[in-house]
C-alpha cells in the first residue's frame, strides 16, 4: 500500500509541476520566449506571499488575492520593459536576457532574504489529511494543489479555445505576421500572456512553498522541473504538460520511497531518456509543434 500511496502522492505533486510549467509553455508557444527566470519569478511570488501573510498574520491562502494580481502586473511590466526589447534581437537575446534576470533575482533574494529555508503558515489545511480506506493517507494540501492545477489548466484551455481573446492568441502562436496583417494587436496581447504566465508561476510558487519549503535557489530547480514537464509532455500541449508533470511527480515520489538521494536524479534521467527516444515528447503536437494547435 505504501506504493499505491506513493504513486497517488506523486500524481498530486505532478499537478504542481504542471502548474508551474503551463506558464513556461504558454510564453514559449505565443511569444517564442523561453523564460529562464520563470522559476525565480515563482519563488518571488512565494516570498511576496510570505511577507504578506506574516505581516497580516493570516494563513498564506488569504493573501493570494493580493499576490496573483501583483504577479500579473509584474509579468506585464517584464514584457513591456524588458522582453519586448529583447525579442527584437531574436530568441537568442531573450534567452540571454532572461538568464541574466534569473541570476539577478536569485542573488537579490539571497541578499534580501538570506539563504535560509522558509515555510508558510498554511493554516488548518496544512496539517489535515484525506483518508481513503485505512491505508491511504493524502495530505489535503496536495489534493488542493492538484485540483488547483487542473482548474487552471482547464481554465486556460477554455479561454484559449472558446473566447475571441484566445482565438487571437492562437492566431499569433500560429503565424504572428499574418495575425498582425488581419489586425491583431500583438503588443497588449503579449503583455497579458506574460502576465498570466507569471501569475500562474506565482500560484505554483505558493503551493511549492506550502508543501515543502523554499529558498532563493529553489527557482532554478523549479525552472528545470517545469521545463522537463513541458518537454516530456510534448512542446505546446497543455494536457501533455500535465501528463509530463505527473510523470515527474510519480518518478520523484516513488524513487524517493526507495532512496531519497536518487529522487531528483531519477527525474532528470527520465527526462533525458524521453529526449533520447522521443525528442518531440510523449504527446507531440504534430507538424507545427506549437501551443496553438493542441490548445485549439
Amino acid at each position, binding site marked *: 500500500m505504501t506504493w499505491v500511496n506513493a504513486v497517488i502522492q506523486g500524481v498530486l505533486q505532478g499537478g504542481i509541476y504542471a502548474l508551474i510549467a503551463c506558464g513556461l509553455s504558454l510564453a514559449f508557444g505565443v511569444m517564442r520566449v523561453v523564460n529562464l527566470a520563470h522559476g525565480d519569478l515563482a519563488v518571488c511570488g512565494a516570498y511576496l506571499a510570505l511577507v504578506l501573510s506574516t505581516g497580516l498574520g493570516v494563513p498564506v491562502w488569504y493573501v493570494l488575492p493580493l499576490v496573483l494580481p501583483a504577479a500579473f502586473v509584474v509579468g506585464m511590466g517584464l514584457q513591456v520593459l524588458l522582453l519586448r526589447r529583447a525579442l527584437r*534581437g531574436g530568441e537568442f537575446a531573450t534567452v540571454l536576457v532572461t538568464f541574466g534576470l534569473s541570476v539577478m533575482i536569485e542573488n537579490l533574494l539571497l541578499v534580501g532574504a538570506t539563504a535560509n529555508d522558509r515555510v508558510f503558515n498554511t493554516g488548518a489545511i496544512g496539517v489535515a489529511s484525506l483518508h481513503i480506506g485505512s491505508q491511504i493517507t493524502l495530505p489535503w494540501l496536495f489534493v488542493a494543489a492538484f485540483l488547483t492545477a487542473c482548474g487552471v489548466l482547464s481554465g486556460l484551455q477554455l479561454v484559449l479555445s472558446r473566447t475571441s481573446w484566445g482565438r487571437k492568441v492562437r492566431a499569433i502562436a500560429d503565424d504572428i505576421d499574418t495575425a498582425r496583417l488581419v489586425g491583431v494587436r500583438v503588443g497588449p496581447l503579449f503583455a497579458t500572456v506574460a502576465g498570466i504566465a507569471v501569475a500562474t508561476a506565482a500560484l505554483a510558487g505558493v503551493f511549492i512553498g506550502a508543501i515543502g519549503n523554499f529558498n532563493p535557489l529553489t527557482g532554478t530547480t523549479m525552472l528545470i522541473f517545469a521545463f522537463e514537464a513541458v518537454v516530456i509532455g510534448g512542446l505546446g500541449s497543455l494536457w501533455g504538460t500535465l501528463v509530463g508533470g505527473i510523470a515527474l511527480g510519480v518518478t520523484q515520489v516513488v524513487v524517493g520511497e526507495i532512496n531519497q538521494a536518487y529522487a531528483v536524479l531519477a527525474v532528470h534521467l527520465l527526462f533525458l531518456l524521453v529526449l533520447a527516444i522521443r525528442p518531440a515528447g510523449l504527446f507531440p503536437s504534430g507538424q507545427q509543434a506549437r501551443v496553438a494547435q493542441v490548445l485549439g
Partner: protein
Amino acid sequence: MAPPELEPVRVRRWSLAASATAGSAAVVLAVLAAVPYFIGGPAEQPLIIAFTFIAMATLWNLLAGFSGLTSFGQNAYIGAGAYGLYLVASHGVNPFADIAAAAVISGLVALPVSALLLRLSGGYFAVASLVVAAVFQIAVTLAPSVGGTTGVSVPGLGGYDPVLREALTYWAAMIVAVVCVVGVFLLVRAGFGMDTRAVASDPVAAASLGVRVGRIRLLAYLAAALGTGAVGALIALQTMFIEPTSVFSIQYSVEMLFMVLVGGMGTIEGPIIGALILFALQQTLSQNGAWYLVLVGGVAVAATLTVPRGLWGFVSDRWGWSLFPVGYQVRDRREEA
C-alpha cells in the same frame, strides 16, 4: 615588359594591425611567463583566475558566438575536468601532466551528451544543458569513490614545494589560455569558421548550401567541452580540493555568458576584453558574492539590450578595427593605388 593584368580587387586575410597584435601579444606573454621569477605568489593567484576567465570566455564564444549553441551547462565540463584530473592523478600520474588527460576525459563525456543535446536548439538547448550539469553534479555526489558530497583533495600535489607548485599551475593556466585563444582563432579562420557562422546565423539556409550542420555543431560542442575540461582541471589544481557544489557551480556559466556578451560575441577580441572586465569586477567585488553576481547578471542584461554586439562589436562596427582577422577583407585595387 607590361605588368601582368591585375585583378580589380584584392582579398586580404591579414593586416598590419594583426601583425602588431601578434607582436605585442608575444611580448606580453614573455613578460607574463617571467612573472613567477620576479613577483611570484601574490601576482600568480589572480593571474591564474584571469587566464581561466580568458579560456572559459573564448570557449563559450566558440559555442554561443560562432555556433549558436547557448549552453548554460558548461559548468558540467568544469566539473568533468576537475574530477577527470582527480581520477588520473589518483593513479599516480603527475597532476600537471594530467591536464591534457582531464580535457580528453571531458571531451569523451561530452560525446554521449551531445547526442542528446544537439537535437535541441535555442532556449530548449540552454535549459537541457542545465539539466545535464545537474545530473553530473548529483551523479558525483552519489559516488563515494570520488568523495561524495564532501569532495576530494587532488592527489600528488603534496610532494611539490608550494612555490614551484604555484608557478607550475600558473604556467599551465597561461598555456591553456593561449592554446584556447589561438586554437579557436585558427579554427574559426579555417573553413570550419565560415561553416559555424553560417550555422549560427541560419541553420536551415546553411544546410541547404551544403554545410553539414550536425557535424559542425558536434565539433564545436566537443571542442568547447575539451577546453572547458582543461580549465576545470586547472581550477582543481589551483584550489587543490574538488567539491561538487563548487566545481559544478552555475556561477561558471554565468561568468562565461557575461564575458562573451559584454566583450562581444562572435569575435576573438571580445571574449578577451570581457574576461579582463570580469576579472576587474571579480577582484574588487569577490568578497561580496551575491552582489557580484547581481551586478554580473545586470550588466549582461543591459549589454544584450543596448550593445547587442558587445564592446568590441561596437568598436569594430564603428572604426572597422580587427586585431584577429578571421574573415576576408576585399579591397578595390584602383582605390588603393
